[in-house]
């Protein structure tokens, strides 16, 4: 049976892994390769690396660490950060990444999704969406350049319409970052994720809000997502991946057990 994926997310800045709260106040949590090895040995199903300053600084991420990850890590990994063209994506994939994820560059130029799909195939094109719940208008809105609080801004898209659009353009997977929940560990935004799940035919990955092992069970049961991404609970040793996998299994969620 296909396992639900547990995906630690590593935000990279200046060659280190960092973590903020609600996309702000980033602190260093460790070395890229050390953390990647730690998580893959603990049973992570996949890793995601976001070089958070790349898009803000209008440059491609540094591919030298991508190759180091590919040499040492034996699980799939996805890389994001300032990928704006087929040529950029080719560099990242040649360095050994299995998938590339685009976010702000796709908002700036949506055709990029189709170009990447046509060149590399659907399976390696992931679109990350930063979605913010605006209580005043009761709407989910797409944000961009969230790697830097000073550059972050609202886009013209509502989340639902952007999800449909990126699928039409050829996205092979969608990571939905629920910004209101990010780093606060109060649980995934199952209301929003369920709404998006209903209109999403490609694998959907939940991001933002994981605090307890039960939050993972809830997101898989209530939102029917394919994977759950989390950062701080793993970086701060709040949740051990091995124990989480066992907990999921005990609660009837299909998970890959390694030991």
């Amino acid at each position, binding site marked *: 049976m296909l*396992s639900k994926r547990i995906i630690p997310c590593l935000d990279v800045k200046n060659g280190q892994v960092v973590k903020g709260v609600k996309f702000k106040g980033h602190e260093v949590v460790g070395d890229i390769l050390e953390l990647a090895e730690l998580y893959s040995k603990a049973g992570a199903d996949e890793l995601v690396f976001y070089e958070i300053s790349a898009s803000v600084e209008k440059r491609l991420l540094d591919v030298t660490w991508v190759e180091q990850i590919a040499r040492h890590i034996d699980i799939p990994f996805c890389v994001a950060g300032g990928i704006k063209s087929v040529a950029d994506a080719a560099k990242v994939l040649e360095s050994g990444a299995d998938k590339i994820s685009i976010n702000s560059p796709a908002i700036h130029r949506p055709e990029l999704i189709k170009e990447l799909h046509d060149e590399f195939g659907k399976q390696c094109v992931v679109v990350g969406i930063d979605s913010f719940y605006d209580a005043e208008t009761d709407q989910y809105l797409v944000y961009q350049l969230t790697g830097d609080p000073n550059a972050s801004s609202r886009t013209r898209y509502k989340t639902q319409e952007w999800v449909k659009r990126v699928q039409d353009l050829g996205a092979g997977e969608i990571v939905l970052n629920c910004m209101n929940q990010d780093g606060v560990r109060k649980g995934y935004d199952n209301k929003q994720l369920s709404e998006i799940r209903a209109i999403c035919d490609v694998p959907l990955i939940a991001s933002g809000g994981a605090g307890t092992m039960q939050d993972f069970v809830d997101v898989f049961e209530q939102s029917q997502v394919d994977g759950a991404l989390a950062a701080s609970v793993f970086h701060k040793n709040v949740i051990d991946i091995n124990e989480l996998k066992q907990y999921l299994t005990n609660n009837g969620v299909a998970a890959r057990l390694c030991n």
Partner: protein
Amino acid sequence: MIAIINTGCANINSVRFAFDRLGANPEIITAPEQLAQFDRAILPGVGHASVAMKRLLDNGWQQAIDEYQKPLMGICLGMQLLCEKTSEGDVDCLNKIPGAVTQLEVGKLTAPHMGWNNLGIEKPHALTQGITSQDQVYFVHSFAHSVNDYTLASGEYGQAFSAIVCKDNYAGMQFHPEKSAQVGAKLLTNFLNWNV
């Protein structure tokens, strides 16, 4: 000495790094004349079958692969290219392993089949030694070879399909052993120890 066949289609670094981690230090070859001097070979593959197949034929690989009598294993699209034919682009393949490749019928499930899934061991073989049906490996594919007499291990996603196939010295793995953690390393080690 192990060769990785580089047809220019696939990103071969992941496969190379996986064998490096096992201490096998593979050599990447680009010309069919080089193949015969190696003890075993890997045919990787990612992308569209018709494009990859055309490159193999244009570069003269059919004869070299036909004449090769030592272990040769295709990975993912590389496995599909070793079969009779594929409906992806409707092309004839290398015809080393009986059976056709067709689009995976996933029903209401999301496509492609992406993620960790179980291997169903169908018959004992050196390639599946030490592997049980509890073990999971990493799949990413939309097309698959149906289960037949040459299936060593099956997979299940909407329908049953061949996860590992073998005929004579030719074998194939539909998933990515190079990305399948300890289980994948075990399978690649089995390939390195396989004698035909």
